[in-house]
């Protein structure tokens, strides 16, 4: 239960003559006892950042603070951080009991205490029945639980780090493992950081998520914030499935113009815009796209349905706006009739849209 504070972390890998900036000037504070996610595409520097927090790597620049104490130069042993790796690690030279006891034995804890901690931890993770089994033949989901157990067996674990722990786990078992992890995290109230490139996984696990791109953290906020107020087209597109729709537009002094169509905007938004700008984009979440069968008389854009996908309790339809040459995805209730080839009308209302200039969000009331 600790505050993890990263200050201007930069990490450069040097192999041969080649330099890779894996993490670029990252600052991030994880509040005590919170569960956090780190999301971003492959190769954006997530693992590197995690290894810097746990002490497996020393950053090229910047500081790592745990509860205000500078631990940048401290090895992992001195940090008491638990880390679950992408590829499960169990020691097949010991049974599950031995695996769980390993970190405590390494510190020379008395056997009595070890036994008690092993029982408590095994119970928390549902490993009680397997204590005296060799984990060599465990599937990835059980192996990950054992390695999580080794992490949380110390009662003073400062933080829990997960590096894409579901990578090797069968889709069918992911839910159980995720629930167990989540349960353990909540029970222990330990500060945690869960790395994934799967936003669904991230947003169900975490109170707050950081979105990473090319070594930088582009946004850190609650799932709602990331969904409703992405700071850039990258976040808008990355969060949500399908991601936000983007349509090129122009500011015509009063309203927005998409081709020959006029989209009204709020007064407050108008103040932030400049009619000389190029690279202006309108963003709208699929669930906020209004789709009508008939024109409503408010400047709706005609579009043709080119694809419908039924996803359980709702459907995603793809609409092509032929006049502008842009495709938009909309989320609709299943009852809605959406035959492929049918003509629809798209309504974009001021309260449902966001504007982006050169990829950056223009915030309402702020320049």
């Amino acid at each position, binding site marked *: 239960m600790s505050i993890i504070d990263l200050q201007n972390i930069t990490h450069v890998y040097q192999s041969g003559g080649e330099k890779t900036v894996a993490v670029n000037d990252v600052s991030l504070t994880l509040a005590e006892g919170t569960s956090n996610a780190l999301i971003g595409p492959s190769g954006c520097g997530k693992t590197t950042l995690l290894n810097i927090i746990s002490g497996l790597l020393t950053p090229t620049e910047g500081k790592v603070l745990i509860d205000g104490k500078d631990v940048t130069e401290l090895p992992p042993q001195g940090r008491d951080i638990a*880390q679950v790796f992408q590829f499960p*690690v169990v020691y097949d*030279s010991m049974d599950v009991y031995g695996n769980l006891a390993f970190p405590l034995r*390494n510190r020379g804890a008395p056997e009595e205490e070890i036994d008690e901690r092993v029982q408590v931890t095994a119970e928390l993770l549902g490993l009680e029945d397997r204590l005296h089994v060799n984990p060599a033949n465990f599937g990835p989901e059980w192996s990950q639980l054992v390695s999580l157990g080794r992490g949380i067996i110390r009662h003073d674990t400062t933080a829990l780090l997960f590096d894409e722990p579901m990578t090797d786990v069968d889709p069918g078992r992911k839910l159980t493992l995720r629930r167990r992890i989540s349960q353990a995290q909540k029970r222990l109230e330990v500060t945690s950081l869960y790395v994934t490139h799967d936003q669904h996984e991230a947003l169900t696990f975490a109170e707050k998520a950081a979105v990473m791109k090319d070594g930088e953290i582009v946004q850190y906020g609650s799932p709602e914030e990331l969904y409703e107020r992405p700071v850039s087209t990258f976040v808008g597109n990355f969060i949500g499935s399908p991601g936000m729709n983007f349509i090129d537009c122009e500011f015509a002094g009063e309203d927005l113009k998409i081709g020959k169509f006029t989209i009204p905007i709020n007064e407050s938004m108008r103040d932030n815009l400049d009619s000389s700008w190029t690279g202006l984009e309108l963003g709208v979440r699929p669930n906020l796209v209004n789709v009508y069968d008939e024109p409503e008389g408010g400047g709706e854009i005609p579009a043709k349905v080119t694809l419908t996908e039924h996803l359980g309790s709702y459907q995603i339809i793809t609409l092509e706006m032929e006049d502008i040459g842009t495709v938009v995805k909309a989320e609709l209730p299943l009852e809605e009739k959406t035959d492929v080839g049918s003509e629809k009308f798209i309504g974009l209302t001021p309260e449902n849209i966001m504007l982006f200039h050169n990829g950056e969000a223009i915030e309402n009331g702020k320049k």
Partner: protein
Amino acid sequence: MKNRAWWFLLPALAVMSLSAFIPLMTVINYAQYSVFPGSAPQFIGMENFADVLNDGVFLNSLRRQVLFSIEILLIEIPLGLGLALALPKKGKWVGWSLVLLGVPLLIPWNVVGIIWRVFTRSDLGAVPAIFNWIGYGAYNASLNSGDAWWTVVAMDVWHWTPLVVLLCYAGLQAIPEEFYRAAKIDGASAWSTFRYVTLPKLRHSLILAVLLRFMDSFKIYAEPFQLTGGGPGNSTTFLSIYTSRKAIGGFNMGFGAAVSIIYFFLVILISWLLYTIMMNVGGGSSQ
């Protein structure tokens, strides 16, 4: 046999039976006869085997052989493992160190003999000179049985430890980096990491190394033969030297055949024992 593929195996099977099966059967057959060149073989049943087991020189050679193999394993396995651990894991020195280590393995057995005979010559060899210098006294492999013994051991260690190094090194390289990361996170000391991660992961490489070194050292021939011909006295007369002396030098083919068969089964039996013990040692337990 519908499968025509079997026909393609025929040539290989024919060669195999000619080169291994037939000679083996011949030896088993010989072992039950009294065979001397120039006279007709006479069937004597198990008598040859009884003679072998009652021969004091055989028993001494066997004892010597076992002792030698134990010494070789006790020296070469830890030394090879230690060297493999000390080798660089990556970088430009990897290639060089592997090549350097591999050199003894590339030298033919008769050249090894010549090199060591020159090394150990009492008049101009480096070994006697060094022993003299450290104050050991006069080293002489052809007079002093202790000197001869340890010289053969040294020859084998020099020649074959690199094989153990290469096997262990390959095994080490195959251990995923993640295990070492996890061990660090779990606060393991260098010794704990070695004991609970490295050593168990090297088990198969080590078993292979032990079996190869056992089988080979148990059949050692060229080194003592070239150094002193099995002497001084019988002090470096190992089983293989004893066997060839009996079968070829002594013209007693039946007796030699019986020795060969006993020898053969000893190698198999001890290899199996070593394998079984090592497969069962250090399995997962909580204590």
